[in-house]
């Protein structure tokens, strides 16, 4: 069965490519720091299951040491000049989009095939890994098409991949680090503590105030944890189920769904949701690492108000 381990092997190879590509770039003064950083991630992807918990912990500390001492840099060489790219774009035209669209197309067709044909029952692909397996398949297909059609130098994929990887840098592992922080928070009982704190300040008698506290609790807790998934079970246990559903007789479907969506408004406003908010800032080479969050706040706040209104009206008055 094709499962996550196959992808770890493939991803490890890609990260080894980032390490090699970084080491090959003399225009990057800190290239050995970059090579070590991507090399450690390669080790994690390939051998993480054999390192033991403490071994993995030391690996994490080593990654943090490289990033924390500012030992990551980026090169200045460009493989093609602006004129060459312009010329290539006018010669090849919109066909250039095709390899880029192969990846979403594979995900689209693959998801449909997996869900609506006997493929799922055949047990070839682990259902938990299917999204990532399709991503991997799309990437391999697109790489093959690029090499056959564009005939780049052999090392081009390695060099171009590491050029992008080094422009994003440490932000690439931040989401995984935050997920590990979530594990520590859970082990230290942070969720239960916050649930108890919120539960202690519930106003009695006012449905609207309880709705407000529930939605704001989802937002604040989501902003702390970086995702609404961690916040929902805690807020449901503290307010959603005992007060809104049982005591005040609210519609459970509305309380559940719109409560989660209130949390998503919090996701738009927190650097802890790194893969949505910090990584794109790095990926788009923004000067301000909080540039994306800053622009999302004016959407998130009116949307939160809308969600509170929906919770109150659809939850209690329909």
């Amino acid at each position: 069965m094709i499962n996550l381990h196959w992808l770890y092997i493939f991803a490890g190879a890609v990260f080894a490519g980032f390490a090699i590509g970084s080491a090959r770039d003399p225009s990057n003064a800190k290239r050995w720091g970059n090579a070590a950083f991507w090399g450690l991630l390669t080790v994690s992807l390939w051998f993480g299951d054999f390192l033991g918990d403490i071994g993995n912990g030391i690996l994490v500390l080593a990654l943090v040491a490289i990033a924390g001492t500012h030992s990551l840099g980026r090169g200045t060489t460009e493989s093609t000049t602006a004129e060459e790219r312009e010329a290539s774009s006018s010669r090849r035209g919109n066909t250039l989009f095709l390899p880029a669209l192969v990846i979403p197309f594979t995900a689209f067709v693959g998801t449909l095939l997996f869900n609506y044909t006997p493929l799922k029952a055949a047990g070839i692909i682990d259902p938990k890994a299917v999204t990532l397996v399709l991503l991997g398949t799309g990437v391999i297909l697109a790489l093959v098409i690029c090499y056959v059609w564009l005939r780049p130098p052999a090392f081009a994929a390695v060099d171009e991949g590491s050029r992008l990887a080094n422009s994003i840098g440490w932000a690439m592992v931040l989401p995984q680090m935050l997920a590990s922080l979530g594990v520590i928070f859970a082990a230290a009982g942070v969720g239960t503590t916050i649930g108890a704190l919120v539960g202690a300040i519930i106003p009695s008698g006012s449905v609207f105030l309880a709705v407000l506290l529930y939605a704001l609790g989802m937002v604040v807790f989501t902003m702390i944890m970086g995702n609404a998934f961690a916040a929902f079970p805690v807020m449901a246990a503290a307010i959603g189920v005992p007060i809104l559903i049982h005591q005040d007789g609210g519609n459970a479907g509305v309380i559940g769904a719109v409560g989660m969506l209130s949390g998503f408004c919090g996701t738009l406003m927190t650097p802890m949701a790194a893969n949505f908010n910090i990584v794109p800032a790095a990926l788009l080479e923004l000067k301000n690492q909080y540039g994306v969050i800053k622009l999302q706040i004016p959407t998130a706040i009116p949307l939160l108000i809308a969600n509170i209104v929906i919770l109150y009206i659809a939850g209690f008055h329909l």
Partner: protein
Amino acid sequence: MINYWPLLGIALVVVGFALRFNPLLVVAVAAIVTGLLGHMPFLKVLGVLGHGFNENRYVTIVWIILPVVGLLERYGLQEQARNLIGGMRGATTGRLLIVYLAIRQILSALGLTTVAGHPQTVRPLVAPMAIAAAGKQRGELDEETSERVKAMSAATDNVGLFFGEDIFLAIASILLIQGSLASFGIQLTPFQLSMWAIPSAICAFLIHGARLLLLDRKLARGK
């Protein structure tokens, strides 16, 4: 008696991020401090951190896409995205991003959340197109404007994803809500939950769409 000390870890994250220390460093320090304040010995904290990191490797797999994006950029993908928009009459940044917002919400509502995203579509296609459209509206772009247009492209992807995906029945968050409520004896079908994601999705489209139109007006004014 509840131990409130681990909450100090949250404060460390907030302060560390606000002072713009390296975020990896902030997160690691906060993790270790939180664990120690939660009465775990150091080696135990290190083990939990290492275990958590290893279990969450799948989060990092998405970067396998970078060699493809890099290769296509080498052959002028971003330039072509710009040329395409440059040749379209009436294309503006706001209209382009509104179309993208609608597509992203609809695809996510059909469960196709991974067909688009920051590395897949925003960096190679959407952001260069939005920049090209802004250039048509305004002429030469100053740095502040181009930062704003790029950040708005990323923000539009997030809003489209977050406020589309919950309409799909089999998405992780709907299953999580269903599971959490079931543990309190409240039995709901995914449909009873996902139908209530529709009003919020419409509000998200209207609110964010209005902001995109405002962005257009701002871009036109600066000309």
